[in-house]
């Protein structure tokens, strides 16, 4: 039992951090009215980016905490830029958000494979011993603190500051908000920036902390888990923080049950089945609180209609 707990707690905690960052990031994009179908592709891309950045920084500086730290930061910045491009494109033009989301997903998968392989080539060329994020023992506590901080700060920003008011307002009715002289593009650009940073952080920690290496296709579907957590938590940070515990637990524990005779295919697909089940439960739950309702304009094309 003690053995199990010694293994379980850090594993659970690292999974929790990854999925919570990702889910909170997804929440901000969708609260601003942008359907986040890009999430899985950009999660895969960011997890590959983190690996390659880590290799490059390890070669340029030296393997260690600084290189790891820098690679996390750079991944977060790169993903933030990609996400703000995503939200901006979806706002500037009345495109189908679904199609744009899927195309970002595909490109994310493809670029992720190329980027990761670039890192792997340098890795075998220089034989760097990449000491992955050194937080497993000493620094982990900072990541945990960061999770708590992110949940609290995002909640505060969304519901107490003007920035959050703008994000929620453009998610409700961008046309109406635009008519009062507010830049819808800017509000959505900013929410894309923040979301991308968090999703990038999730992807980076996934590679550098949870997996500790890279192989092609890594991270596939883990973005969707973050998405499912965001929906199951009613796109509301405090609830996401709670829901994420259960998802992470399921994700961590199921493979463990393999030794108890559970087929590997069941344990790999169970999180997806659980995600679907969670979405069903959420959608049939009657929501009394206005705060928990879906953003009114989620996924709708935005344009100014000129009519007589």
């Amino acid at each position, binding site marked *: 039992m003690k053995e199990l707990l010694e293994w379980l707690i850090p594993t659970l905690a690292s999974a929790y951090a990854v999925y919570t960052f990702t889910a909170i990031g997804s929440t901000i994009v969708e609260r601003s009215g942008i*359907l986040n*179908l890009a999430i*899985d*592709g950009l999660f895969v891309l960011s997890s590959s980016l983190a690996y390659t950045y880590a290799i490059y920084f390890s070669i340029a500086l030296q393997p260690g905490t600084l290189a790891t730290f820098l690679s996390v930061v750079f991944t977060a910045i790169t993903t933030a830029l990609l996400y703000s491009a995503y939200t901006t*494109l979806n706002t*500037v*033009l*009345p*495109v*189908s958000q*679904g*199609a*744009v989301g*899927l*195309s*970002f*997903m*595909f*490109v*994310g*998968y*493809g*670029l*992720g*494979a*190329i*980027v990761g*392989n*670039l890192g*792997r*080539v340098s890795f075998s060329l220089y034989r760097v011993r990449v000491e992955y994020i050194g937080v497993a023992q000493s620094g982990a506590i900072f990541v945990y603190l960061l999770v708590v901080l992110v949940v609290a700060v995002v909640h505060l920003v969304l519901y107490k500051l003007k920035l959050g008011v703008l994000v929620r307002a453009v998610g409700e009715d961008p046309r109406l908000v635009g008519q009062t002289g507010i830049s819808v593009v800017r509000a959505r650009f900013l929410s894309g920036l923040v979301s991308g940073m968090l999703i990038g952080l999730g992807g980076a920690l996934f590679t550098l902390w949870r997996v500790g290496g890279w192989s*092609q*296709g890594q991270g596939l*579907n883990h973005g*969707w888990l973050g*998405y*499912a957590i965001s*929906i199951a938590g009613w796109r509301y940070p405090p609830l996401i923080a709670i829901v994420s515990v259960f998802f992470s637990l399921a994700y961590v524990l199921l493979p463990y049950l393999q030794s108890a005779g559970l*087929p590997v*295919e*069941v344990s*790999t*697909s169970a999180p*997806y*089945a659980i*995600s*679907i089940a969670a*979405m*069903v439960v959420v*959608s*049939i739950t009657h929501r009394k609180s206005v705060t928990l309702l879906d953003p009114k304009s989620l*996924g709708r094309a935005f*344009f*100014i*209609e*000129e009519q007589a």
Partner: protein
Amino acid sequence: MVKISLVVTKRYKKSVSTSTPAILSLSLLLGLVISYVLIWFFTKLDPASFFSTFYSTLASYAGLLEPLLFLSLLGTAISVAFYGSFWNVGAEGQYVLGMLGAIYLVMFSPASSMLLGSDGTTAGVAKLLAVALGGFLGSLWSLLPGVLKAYTKIGEVPVMLLMNYIAYSISDYLTAGPWKGRYTYGYIRTDLIPESSKLTVIPGFEILRYEVVAAVAIVFIGAYLLIERTWLGLEIKVLGSNPVALRSSGRDEKKTIVLVSAISGFIAGLAGALRLLGYDYRLAYNIGDGKTGFYGYTAILVAWLSFRDLKLVLPSALIVSALSSFGYRMQMSLKGLLPPGVSAFAFSQIFIGVTLAVYTVIRITKEYSVKLVVAR
């Protein structure tokens, strides 16, 4: 100070549907150029080898026939769903379920021994049943997100993307477990299906099968009649363009969603069954690792490019076949020029994603006028 602003307005009067072929070719062209720039950024690949490889992909059209047939089938499946705004991104999973249905019928069902006896006279019935079961399973797989969308308003897109992976897992479970073959040289896979249940090769065209060509024709004509000539087709189109009008006309919106999801899934499952009986002949472990050719995903692009116009499914399927074959060709012919390990998968995904994005952006000009206003 110079201010630049995009003024986008919805247009009602002018319909620009005639320019659809132009939009298609422009998307393909721009998609290739942008993909090249993206790939160049990481690989410094020279443009000559990139574009000459694309040209040689088109030139070897025989190699495009097989993806063309399956992308047409799956593209039709998804297009029918798109008419009803049912965004079937789960064709990949339905396709896999179709394979499972077909192999079950010809290898593991009681019917298989009865119908595939020594004389082979009833083999045709077995094949027909196998395809029908594949279609049925595909339609069940698509029905679940359809029912969820209709009755709980859950977006079908994430559900189906997740279900695709569950379908892979089911296939892998069966392949490694109950259906594991005896003569597999150490690979984890099923045995080959009985010889008599394999589809018929068209003499002179090794890559074609009579049954597949016939199925493409039947499915295509059937889908066209459904959409343009039947009451159900009308209801599907109204569901896709204005669900409120469908309801206020006294029709059951939910029933229509469920029906369109089932029809779409049936065609996708049928494609999977044909694939298994005509080309793969067995299931292999790790099916999600490219063993489906990702046709179910690739066909999403076919359906987008031919958006709600069945006539355009074939040309779009051709374009997409070229794009996806292009990825494989690049991997093979540019081996020395690319970082090792960079796979066809990566290129195909980039081409598909970029072309889809470009098309989505260009397409808005059909419904909106976009003016760039520059003020001093």
